[in-house]
């Protein structure tokens, strides 16, 4: 029993730990829509992988990275605002990928699994790959934390102070692309943004500094993971939605606790 569950549990833990800080940046920089667009393009990656008959994992990662890079270019200029661009790309790729997956993978592919997660399909090889990426990302966030916060506050000021703003912004987008690609198995394309945003939102009420918020978000994501996986094991719920529902529950608790605090 344990051998079957070991890889899914480890995958979940690594993703939850990364979702904390990255989710904070999504909330601070208002990138929720960007996260959605990435998740949908991950689905497009699945379709590409099917059609070209290459590894789905690699194809997902590839299409997320391409979208992140092209969005970084688009965001700067143009007549349409960035959220309009995101809307077009995001839902365009969702529609395209559903069509492609239904046509190319009819009968072979579990579309449901890609939309809502299929954690039990995680293998130990996945765990090793994900952990390696996570360590690199974690080190980057740790080392450049202050610079990243400066960029959130005022990009011009950050530039004058000698921070390589464009490079950091691109790296942050790539980091979010990576975690999106990695979380496909855990919660599926439709719920990835929720997994990133909700723990960070719950952490806001208790945090006094950006670092604290990231740590509390990590803890909250881990607890949601625990509750969700237990519920899924115990009552046979779909794992991804169970995790997100647990995260929402924690969010509700954190909000009501602040309301009580204010009432005192």
């Amino acid at each position, binding site marked *: 029993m344990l051998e079957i569950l070991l890889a899914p549990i480890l995958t979940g833990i690594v993703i939850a730990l990364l979702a904390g800080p990255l989710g904070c940046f999504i909330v601070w920089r208002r990138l929720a829509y960007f996260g959605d667009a990435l998740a949908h393009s991950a689905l497009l990656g699945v379709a590409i992988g099917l059609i070209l008959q290459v590894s789905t994992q690699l194809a997902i990662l590839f299409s997320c990275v391409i979208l992140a890079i092209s969005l970084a270019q688009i965001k700067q200029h143009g007549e349409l605002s960035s959220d309009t661009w995101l809307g077009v790309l995001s839902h365009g790729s969702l529609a395209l990928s559903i069509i492609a997956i239904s046509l190319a993978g009819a009968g072979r592919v579990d579309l449901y699994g890609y939309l809502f997660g299929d954690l039990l399909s995680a293998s130990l090889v996945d765990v090793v790959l994900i952990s390696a990426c996570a360590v690199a990302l974690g080190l980057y966030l740790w080392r450049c934390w*202050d610079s990243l916060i400066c960029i959130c*506050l005022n990009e011009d*000021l950050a530039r004058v102070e000698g921070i390589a703003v464009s490079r950091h912004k691109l790296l942050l987008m790539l980091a979010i692309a990576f975690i999106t690609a990695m979380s496909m198995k855990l919660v599926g394309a439709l719920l990835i943004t929720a997994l990133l945003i909700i723990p960070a939102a719950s952490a806001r009420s208790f*945090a006094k500094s950006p670092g604290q918020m990231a740590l509390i978000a990590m803890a909250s994501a881990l607890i949601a993971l625990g509750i969700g996986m237990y519920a899924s094991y115990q009552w046979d719920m779909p794992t991804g939605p169970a995790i997100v529902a647990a995260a929402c529950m924690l969010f509700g608790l954190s909000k009501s606790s602040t309301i009580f605090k204010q009432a005192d």
Partner: protein
Amino acid sequence: MSDILLLEASGLSIYKQGRTLVDNASLRLEAGKVVSLIGPNGAGKTTLVRALMGLVEINEGYISASKGLQIGYMPQKLNLDASLPISVKGFLSLNQNSNREHFLHCAQISDVDCIFSRPMQSLSGGELQRVLLCRALLKKPQLLILDEPAQGLDVNGQAELYQLIAQLRDELNCGVLMVSHDLHFVMAATDEVICLNQHICCHGHPEKVSAHPEYLKLFGHNQASNVALYTHRHDHQHGVHGELIENCNHKH
């Protein structure tokens, strides 16, 4: 002492999408001198200042800065999202490795040591300006660049801020470049005024500029008489602080 050249720009032109934002502008910034950049909205003030800091691409002309020039920049505002929890002290300590003594000294000069533990979101306009000024000072700047430093401050707060800037200039012997559109205060706190409307209309000593025909054309006689009112008020500023405001209200 005051002739140390910090930054020189010559013949700067900046175009964007077929529009001329800055046209053939030249200026010199020296240590110990306060230069004010004034002009109507859309005159290209902020673009010019951002170009001087290397944030905007220049189409013509050149900028030469003295070697290893430390610039302290005070932006107009921060993109403070309510979801980012950060205290004043937390903000000032970001990427900061200067020693504690210098840190506290800067906090004292800009009068922010009493609001260290407050969340950044709770600051008033004046407090935020002082925090931003403190952040600029922490870098031990040779050149302070302030973008609309008095924005959103009341008359009292403006007077205090400009006094503080003049005091800093004397204390650190740094050069100061500030962007502004409130004329009468700027005129008194400045060694040189540059009047910008895409091109540099006129520049020089405040008294001289305020009589310049180009300046009058740009701001109209109404504003110009405000300046005259100010020169009158200048005598009072050395007196009691509160009196100045009362006088001002009286005149209007």
